[in-house]
């Protein structure tokens, strides 16, 4: 897969619940797999925000469009929210390592928090195309922060909603119901996307219940293409050695049991090349 930088046109910008749904033209962009992301330039060519913003790709039509879901919460996304159909935007896509899909028709759970559900409809379709069972757990702080409930309902065998405040579905967290879902459906694989504390909890519950988890992490990035080294987190490699891996090119999808969740935002002392006493 090779990423392509395109200066392209926004087709539409539509509110969806508490989020915005943006569709852009994507001529020449390679096929998108679930979990791939795109890096968007924000602020215009002479603006003061230089760094790209990473968004998971919600959907794509090969050679035609890319779709994104976002919430205007920072400088970059607030600017993006002011853009309209016909405006020009600079995008690099597809980027990152996507979710690994099973070769066998196994039983899978998709877990997502808030707009972490954006890439999951595509994933659910791919899993079903492989004759996998797909159970979905979607969570959010409150009802208006839920995303993709109806769309995912249409491509899954069951769907449970949780909200922290109980405004929709079960009151509580996704992990309050996940163990039951795994047990009941004999799930072997859990696919997760959402905030880091949720991912950590999902990875733990999955492991405790004998399921293999893959988590799409959210680390702040500057470039999205592997050159800036800002989006690192401690990942245990196949050789058992922890390295500060780049979430943009080594991820954003990692095996849940390979992320040193408690050590995120630190450099563990046993990490490859970690500072030694008296060193840096």
């Amino acid at each position: 897969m090779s990423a392509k930088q395109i200066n392209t046109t926004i087709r539409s910008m539509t509110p969806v619940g508490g989020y915005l749904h943006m569709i852009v033209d994507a001529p020449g962009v390679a096929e998108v797999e679930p979990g791939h992301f795109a890096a968007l330039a924000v602020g215009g060519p002479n603006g003061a925000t230089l760094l790209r913003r990473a968004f998971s790709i919600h959907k794509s039509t090969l050679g035609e469009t890319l779709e994104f879901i976002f919430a205007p919460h920072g400088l970059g996304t607030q600017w993006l929210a002011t853009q309209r159909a016909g405006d020009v935007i600079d995008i690099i896509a597809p980027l990152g390592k996507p979710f690994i899909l099973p070769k066998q028709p196994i039983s899978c759970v998709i877990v997502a928090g808030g707009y972490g559900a954006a890439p999951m409809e595509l994933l659910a379709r791919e899993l079903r195309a492989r004759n996998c069972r797909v159970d979905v757990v979607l969570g959010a702080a409150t009802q208006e922060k839920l995303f993709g409930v109806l769309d995912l309902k249409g491509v899954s065998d069951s769907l449970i909603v949780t909200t922290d405040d109980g405004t929709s579905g079960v009151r509580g967290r996704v992990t309050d119901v996940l163990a039951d879902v795994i047990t009941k459906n004999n799930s072997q694989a859990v696919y997760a996307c959402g905030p880091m504390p949720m991912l950590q909890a999902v990875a733990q519950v999955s492991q405790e219940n004998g399921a293999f988890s893959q988590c799409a992490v959210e680390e702040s990035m500057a470039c999205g293409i592997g050159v800036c080294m800002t989006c690192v987190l401690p990942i245990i490699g196949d050789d058992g050695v922890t390295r500060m891996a780049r979430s943009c090119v080594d991820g954003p999808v990692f095996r849940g049991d390979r992320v040193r969740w408690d050590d995120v935002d630190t450099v563990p002392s046993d990490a490859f090349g970690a500072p030694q006493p008296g060193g840096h």
Partner: protein
Amino acid sequence: MSVDLSTSLGSLELASPTLTASGCAAAGRELAQFGDVSSLGAVVTKSIMMEPRSGRATPRMAETPSGMLNSIGLQGPGIEAFLEKDLSWLTQNNVTTIVSIAGNNVDEFGELARILAKVPGIAGLEVNISCPNVESRGQVFACNPVSAAQVIETVKSVWHSDAPVLAKLSPDVTDIVEIAHSVVEAGVGGVSMINTLLGMVIDVDKMKPMLGGRTGGLSGPAIRPVAVRAIYQVHAALPNLPILGMGGIRTGHDALEFIAAGASAVSIGTVVFGDPGAPWRIANELGQELQARGYDSLREVIGLAHHN
């Protein structure tokens, strides 16, 4: 007629005047999907150290107006893996490569230069004596004329090659011209300027510095006038000293400012994070800017702002 953009840094002839800036393009490979890396003036690699290095804790980055703070802390594979994986790729792909080196002490700089002196295909060395993301300010050799010169003398004593040795200078000094004089006396073939400026952003919700490393290096267009000033001062004092200019170059127009101030070539850094095609785009734009002003070549413009 198209403008002649070829230039040189001392003995090193460059077909294109735009290079990547150290720390902003890894070892070039990631940029290959956005352009022909061998057509760049050169790739200046991320600074290589003797040992593998994890770098600092996250958050490592904070966006600032027209710039960013970074606190990477020289994450890298160490010289052995660099030679095996990164330099071999650069050589195989005919990329003009300037290797940036960083040491914890003077001896490590010497050891890195000694190892690299035996490796064919290196177009130059950039000696990073000015990374701000180290625990001890004493390691910022470029803040002191004596220690800056010690590093360069040590590197030069083992670097028996025509390929130029460039000293990367920090703008965080009282008198950058004094530092430049000092490294020239120690035998550098040129200077790269400027490295980032030490800065800080405070998260007022958590009431603590935003970066894991607390302080970081400020880069991007926000520092561009500082870079132009520093280059202008050094070129005025040392008009024959080749200067590789960097610091917030975003367009060909920006690059032309650096050339007019006295740089012979420019490195494109932070802007690559937002626009990975920038090193190629800026070379094209620079050609257009020169042509629009009636110049036939880049060389005739180097330092021109000193004569008007």
